[in-house]
């Protein structure tokens, strides 16, 4: 079986003042289409770096990142942005909704960026809002929503343009336990029902339940562990 996401010998380091900090060292990783992957690791271990590399936000120092038939390392900045616009949906720890757009507009934005027509975009936004249970908040601005509500909008936004890959960086990290649970079940339902590939960087043990595979970072390399081991 050919992997959908394939990292070959990927290394990444950052310059911090006078010293160079190696984050990933010759990482190899293969992810199949429709799989949900959970990345575990301490803060600063390189989880977010990996998400940035897969989304094309950052480039590796060496190695190749293949998404489907595309080698991200071979794309220029503009092409990587367009790839991200089309194929990636992001869910952040701090929700990161655009404060100057309403809930509905936040959802329409990815569709509009991809050239969707406004009528169709609005219908799709309403469907997504119903899916996440916020149909009545379409015209609210983000600062009027609770954290959980904002994250539900963020999930809807990540999925609305039907990207092939969902990248979630600590999606429950800023929510209370109960709300976190609701968000996890929502992600599970929406992502799995559309057979999307999802990579989640998290500290949360509960998120692990969603995972097809769990990886942890050891000595700057990803090592697969079983969900049971991860659950401790």
């Amino acid at each position: 079986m050919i992997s959908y996401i394939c990292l070959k010998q990927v290394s990444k380091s950052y310059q911090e003042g006078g010293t160079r900090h190696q984050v990933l060292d010759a990482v190899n990783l293969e992810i199949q289409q429709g799989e949900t992957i959970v990345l575990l690791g301490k803060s600063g271990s390189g989880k977010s770096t990996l998400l940035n590399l897969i989304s094309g936000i950052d480039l590796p120092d060496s190695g190749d990142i293949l998404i489907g038939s595309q080698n991200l390392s071979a794309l220029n900045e503009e092409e990587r942005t367009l790839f991200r616009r089309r194929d990636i949906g992001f869910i952040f720890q701090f929700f990161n909704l655009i404060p100057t757009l309403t809930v509905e507009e936040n959802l329409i934005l990815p569709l509009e960026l991809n050239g969707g027509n406004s009528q169709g975009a609005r219908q799709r936004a309403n469907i997504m809002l119903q899916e996440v249970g916020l149909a009545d908040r379409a015209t609210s601005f983000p600062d009027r929503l609770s954290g959980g509500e904002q994250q539900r909008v963020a999930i809807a936004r990540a999925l609305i343009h039907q990207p092939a890959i969902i990248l979630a960086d600590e999606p429950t990290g800023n929510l209370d336990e109960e709300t976190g649970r609701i968000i996890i079940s929502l992600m599970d339902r929406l992502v799995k029902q559309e057979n999307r590939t999802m990579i989640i960087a998290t500290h949360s043990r509960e998120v692990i339940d969603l995972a097809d595979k769990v990886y942890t970072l050891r000595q700057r390399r990803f090592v697969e562990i079983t969900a049971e081991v991860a659950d401790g």
Partner: protein
Amino acid sequence: MANLLNKSSLRYMWRHPWQIGLSILGIAVGVAVVIAIDLANQSANNAFSLSMDSVTGKATHQITGVSAGVPDSVFVDLRRELGFRQSAPVIESHVKYQGAEREIFYLMGVDAFSEAPFRAYIQGIGTRISGGFGDFMTNPRAVLMSSDKAAKLGLEIGDSLHIQIGSRKHSLIISGMLKPEDEYSNHALETMLIVDIAAAQEMLRMDGYISRIDLIIPQGAENEKQLERLSEWLPDNLRLTTASARNEATIQMIRAFDLNLTALSLLALVVGMFLIFNTMTFSVVRRRKQLGLLRSLGVTRKEIFRLILSEALLLGIIGTVLGIGVGIFLGQILVQLVSQTINDLYFILTVNQMTITPASLIKGLCLGVGVTVLAAIKPAREATTANIRSVMNRSRQESNLRDNMPKLTLIGLAVMALGGLILLIPTRNLIISYGGILPMLIGATLLTPLVVFAAMRLARPLMSKGFGLLGRMATRDVSAHMTRTGVAIAALSIAVAATIGVDTMITSFRSTVVHWLESRLRADIYISPPSLLSRRNSATLEPEFVDDLQEVDGIDYIGYFRENMIPVDGRMMHLVASSLSQRNFDSFGFKRGDPAEAFAAFKTREGLLISEPYAFHNNIDVGDAITIPTDRGEREFEVAAIYYDYGSDIGVVVISFDVYRKYWDNHRISGISVYGKPGQDVEQLVETIRRLPDPDEEVLVRSNQFLKDTSIAIFDRTFIITSVLHILAIGVAFIGVFSALMSLQLERTHELAVLRANGLTPKQLKKLLTLQTGLMGLVSGLLAIPLGLGLAALLIYVVNQRSFGWTLQFQIMPEILLQSLVLAVVAALLAGLYPAYKMANSSPALALKEE
């Protein structure tokens, strides 16, 4: 670009009305100043063209004399012998209206029978003349004037119109009104008085002479021959020129003045540019997280760049449109100042209306919008670099700036060096000169981060000692938020530097002029007819008065001079014929030439003394020959010396009165200097001389000190417009600092809320913010001092030198530097008051929650 992105931008702006409003205000004031100066300059030029058009009419050529005018017999011969039927004699002079309001009229004496092809309004074509035209022909006191003007002055047909020509007062009778049928003619005729030529001859005491003969000689081969024939026929003392030549030579006098005003007006726009840069930078900084988020959603760098640029464009358009409106209003005030200065220094000009041309408005629009977009390029580029990795990291920018500081300093020095190189280009082109000053200023602002870091490091122990923890925090805050504080400090220091530069230049100029007046004005009393110009005597004294003066007791020595403006090679030559004794001569300061040798050449060998600006503008040195039109034809005279003179920026050529008498026919005197006998009471002598003129004659008899004071007062008046312009530039800078500080404090809402949550009282917070803004003002002021003095040096040694050719003594006035320092600190403190108040009184809980 996605509509939602634009919508998001608009909402962001809507949510920050003060920041956006101040930015719009800044650009509006900048554009307003540029537009106002442009309109004022243009209105003055148009008023001049309009009045010249109405005076010249359809004439294509003119025959003029040099000093005395044209003998009226030439006109008769021209018609009889050469058959020039399309010719008209004209006598002209500016006259002063003797009424409650200060009005200058252009008096034109015409021959009604010859006028038909030339000036339609005199024949009633395109104009209605009410009243009797017959009376105009027969009554030597009859005058025609514009009906609008008469109405403004409350005059009617049959009323007396009192005027003064030179020192002599006259009373005319309004015999008819000119009623122009269109607005253009109306403005053209507003300042005109038409009298019969014989009456004008009598009033101006030009018996047997006229000012000029107007001709209509259309282009064509046949007419070329006619012109050649006419040139050969004319005697040596008369000249045939195109009708426009004299006007062009006159308007040429104010070119440098116009250009310098324009350059100064651009200063306000440059400061406005900083403001836009500031606003856009803040708006990008505040939205870095959001911009990074948009990038993560797939918005390309180009789209982000376009988004920020289009925001700036919107601000630019709104600011510019507002600025144009304000500029038109401001222009109406400035046009008075500009025309006052032109009247003081160059020629008589009445500006009745402001000329608003589409070209001027388009220029303002392009400048305003262009400058805004230019200022937004860097923030827009920065916005494209917002990446998702660092959206959470606000200190990243600051550390980037610290890392880049050596590079920034080097770039600043390189930009300054580039400016220096441009200034080294041996040119008299003022645009290139100002083009060199701009990089010097911009380069200096790039040194701001280094200066601020160093200053804060030095200030820290002192502030700590004086204000404890708050003092230490204030110094650290200024350094730590350099990306925000730096721009505000740079904008304020540029504005304050401009104040120091312009003030030091004016003060240096003033002290040079005072020193020059002290050494030049040595006579006890100066006598002249009332002049319509401040710097030059446009009229002459009555010969009888001069004769009577010789008889007055108590006078040791009388010096006299005659002034003429003569068009030479497309420029006006200010020729002064002077009796110049050895004691007058000793008061000259010479730049080139041996004084003793020069005096001998001046007195005995027809040598010329030329002023520094004349030598500069005409590229002439001692020993060179100058060709001057005389009443005996063109003559060459050798330059004996070049002397310092600050009375005229076009320059002066001085010739011995004896030589003048030999080559020129009009020997009437423009002014007299009187030296009293030793022990003579000068005030008593003044009183005696004041009793000499007839009752209908006015002569100005002024003591030495009075003349010096008057000269300085005129000097100060001519710099009012400069002061107005730089006050406006400071206004823009103040808006900039206010906007910057507001942005800075709002940016720190969370940080300040944390301080409040940890126990900092509102009073302490106010103190912290006040200390911080005070420090920023102090650093701006300190940075502005070397920058301002450098700017002053450039204005004195480059701009003044290249515009006017003057050597000015650079003078540093400690009080100007101190005032500027206080101005910077006060401006910053004032600008910081509201943000400090707002922050100290806002709820920390809310601020923490919002974050």
